[in-house]
Every structure is written in C-alpha cells, then in structure tokens.
C-alpha cells in the first residue's frame, strides 16, 4: 500500500519535485562557487577570518529557499486533493483515515528530505575542500533551522489547506506565520546552536497539526 501511495504521489507532483530538486542543486552549486569566488578575491585566510570573527554569512541568500520549497510542495500535493473534495477517494480506502493522512504527509516529508539532504550534502561537501571543519559545522548549524523551517512550513501549509472556513483559515495562517518566524529570527552564523533541539521538537509537533483540520474537512464541518 505504501508503495502504491508513493507512486501516486510521485506521479502527482513529480514535475514540481524535479523542479525544486534542480533549484536545490543550483543553490548548492551557487553556494560552492560563491565561497570559491571569495577565496579567489580575498584569499582563504581572510575569508576564514571574517567568517570566524566578523560574523560574515555568505549563505544568507539561501535562507528562504527551503521555506518556499516546503510551501510549494504542500500546495502541489494537497490542493488537487481538496479540489472537488477528491480526498474522499482516499478516505474511502480500507485504511484508518488518520493513518492514511500521516502516510500522505510522510511522503511529502520524504520528498523534502531527499531535496534538502541533496542540497546540504552538495553544499557542505563543496565547502569542505576550502574551509576548516569548524566553519563547515557552523555552516551546517546555520542551514539547519532553515531546513527545519521548510519541513514545518510544509506541515502547517497542509493544515491551512484542509481548513474549509475563510475566517479560521486566516487565523491559522497568522498562527502558522508566527510559528514559522521562530525558525528565521536571525541569520547570524551558528546563532541557533542552543535552540536547535527545541526547533527539532517543534518540527516534530508540526507533523500532527493537519489532523484536526483534516478531520473537520472529512466530517464536512464548515462553521
């Protein structure tokens, strides 16, 4: 069943996924080139120096790429399901409805994980050749909240999509936006180091946020 669901979701959003995968590869490539370019311009020692002591963040432009990726994949995956209430087809399958919903979002998480992991691996591997281990670790810690924010944004977008009343949807968008800003308070290198475990827990909590609005959608509750 999971394989069938995976194939269905892949068929539905494969072009969006491929598009964002390519974007992520370009992002990783650009990041590598930027670092190499900086080294060409100022030399490795100067770059290390400003990275370590001047709070220089050459990755900042990547900050919102995972966020948009998460939101776009949620829209691509779930808008076709709520249009014409097509998701009734899925709820009618002989599987517990909440289990089915969790499986569906886990498919989205899997797609996001592949995209984000590829981006991270390429970017970090690329800079490993020119930066010391400490700066590579700092880069990873700088990226981490952005990618966690992308995954959280995916789940919160799904939660909003399932809400069928305009007022509640607006309210949920406001709550979701406030929640997401927790992941984007600062782009200072390594600033999120102490908060990363908490952000990880918040991301895990977001995995369940769509169950309530999906229940309301399933039961036709529109008040």
């Amino acid at each position, binding site marked *: *069943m999971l*394989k*069938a669901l995976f*194939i*269905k979701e892949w*068929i*539905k959003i494969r072009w969006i996924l491929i598009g964002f995968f390519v974007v992520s590869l370009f992002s990783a490539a650009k990041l590598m080139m930027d670092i190499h370019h900086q080294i060409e311009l100022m030399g490795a020692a100067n770059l290390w120096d400003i990275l370590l002591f001047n709070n220089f963040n050459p990755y900042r432009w990547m900050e919102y790429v995972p966020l948009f990726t998460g939101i776009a994949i949620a829209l691509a995956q779930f808008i*076709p399901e709520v249009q*014409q*209430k*097509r998701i*009734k*087809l899925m*709820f*009618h*399958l*002989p*599987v*517990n409805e909440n289990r089915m919903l969790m499986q569906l979002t886990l498919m989205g998480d899997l797609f996001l994980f592949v995209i984000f992991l590829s981006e991270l691996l390429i970017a970090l591997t690329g800079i490993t050749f020119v930066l010391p281990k400490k700066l590579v670790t700092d880069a990873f810690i700088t990226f981490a909240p952005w990618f966690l924010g992308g995954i959280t944004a995916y789940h919160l977008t799904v939660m909003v999509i399932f809400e069928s009343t305009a007022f509640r949807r607006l309210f949920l968008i406001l709550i979701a936006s406030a929640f997401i800003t927790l992941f984007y308070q600062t782009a200072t290198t390594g600033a999120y180091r102490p908060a990363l475990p908490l952000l990880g827990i918040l991301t895990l909590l977001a995995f369940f946020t769509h169950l309530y609005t999906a229940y309301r959608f*399933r*039961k*036709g*509750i529109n*008040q």
Partner: protein
Amino acid sequence: MENIIECKNLTHHYGTKPVFENLNFNVPAGSILGLLGKNGTGKTTTINILNGFLQPTGGQCYVFGEDSQHISPRTKARIGYLLEGHIQYGFMTIAEIERYYSAYYPGWKKEPYYELMEKLDVAPNQKISSMSTGQRSQVALGLILAQDPELLILDDFSMGLDPGYRRLFIDYLREYARAGNKTVFTTSHIIQDMERLIDDVLILDSKQVVAQQHLNDFMEHFRKYTFTTDRKVEDWSQAPAVNVEQMNQHVELYTWAEEIEVKAFLDGNGILTENFSPENMNLEDAFIGLTGKY
C-alpha cells in the same frame, strides 16, 4: 431480509436551515434503491452521512451494522463509492490508477475494469484528466467493478453524461448488480435513468420521506387522474390527493386513492367533471406528481 443500510431518525441542518428531519429508511440486501428528490432535499447530504463524510445533526445510519460515522477499514472494503461528477485522480492513466487501487483491495479483479476500458477509445497512457466526462465515468465505474464490493453507493451517476454513456453505465451496472446480488444505493437527477435501473424507490420531499417501496408497487398504487371542470377550485386541500394542478379547466390530480374515492369526493363537493380518466405515468411523471413542480 437483512438490511445493509439502516437510517434511524436521521436529521440534518445546515446552520439553522433544516435539510431533513427524522428520516427513517432501510436498504435490504440485494436491492437496487434509487433516492429521488428535488434539488436541495438532501440526496448528497444523505450519501455523505452514509460514507461518514458528514456528521448528522441527529439520528444515525448503520452500514453493515456499523455506525456510518465510524466505519472500520474492513467494512469500507465492502463498499464501492462513486463521487458526484465521477471524480478520480486526473493525473493518472487508466493503468496507473488500476494498479494504485489494486494495492488496497485483496479481492481486486482487474478483468471487468479492462473489459470496460476496451470499449473506450483511449490510449493506454492517456491521462484521465484529458478524457471526456463519459470516458471518466466508465473509468470510475470500472474501478468499482474491479473492487467487487457488496454495496455500491453512487452519487448522481448521470451527471454530465450524454445519453449513450448513461445507457452504457446503467446497462453495465444493472447486469453487474443482478449477477452478483449486489446492493445499490444511488441518486440521479435524471429519473428516466433511475427507472431503467432501480427495484426500489425512496423519495424525499418537504424534509421527509414521502415514499419508500418497490418501484412496481409505487407505479401501481400512485395514480394520476385528469378531467376538465368549469369550476375554479381555490382549495384542493380536502381532496384525497397529494397534489392537484388546475390550469383553467384542465385538472391533474395525483393520489394514492382509488378512482372511486376520488369520484366520491368530486361528486360530494359538487365538482362536475368531464373526460375523467386515469392516466399512465412514467417514473418522472409520478415523481413530479408526488413532489410538485416547484
């Protein structure tokens, strides 16, 4: 006979507006029951409640003995469901969607699906979204046939179909249901289609069930009489009739009463008639006669 569906005191309101109140009806095993009603009488609402997609304001429905709000996966596997408009996953091809659903149903039979698909002029890799409404209806029907459920719940199967596809749909469905002793609960806004398909009729009007019986009994006992009269009767409410329509001198009277009872009323009230005669009706005539044109 065992009831596959039982609804007791079913009531639903949208906000403060009641759709229906205290509906009671059963669907026996092996019957093909058509739910008829004008727009807004709650046909789709009833189907949504039966599938657990709407919490009723009051009352309950049971499907295979389970509360329709909490149908177990095992029972859902016994129910085939056609959404209004033959909605399916338009981004899939006919082969992809068949493989997708087959993973969920251990008793999946793909032969009837592909037998139906061969009748369609579609390429194997053609997406469902690029098919006509008629072709999509056959895909939706074929998937239900492959699932081989004991109960089929069909929400307005005629929607958007031309006469040929409607006939194809009905003929296939009727043959399938008869051969497998399936139970069918269906709605359609095209009553001629229902007449070709159903054994039993359930009619909703004025927020309640106004008829539930075998189609043949309904057609036999619900009658239409026509006559002409010079008298303009302002109030027919005392007549033994469910609906009377008078246009100038011509009167159409719809009733469950015998001819003798109607004539006795007319004579007793001094309503002189000419050309009094019973009229044959099809199901659409009878439905309009029972529920009115407005």
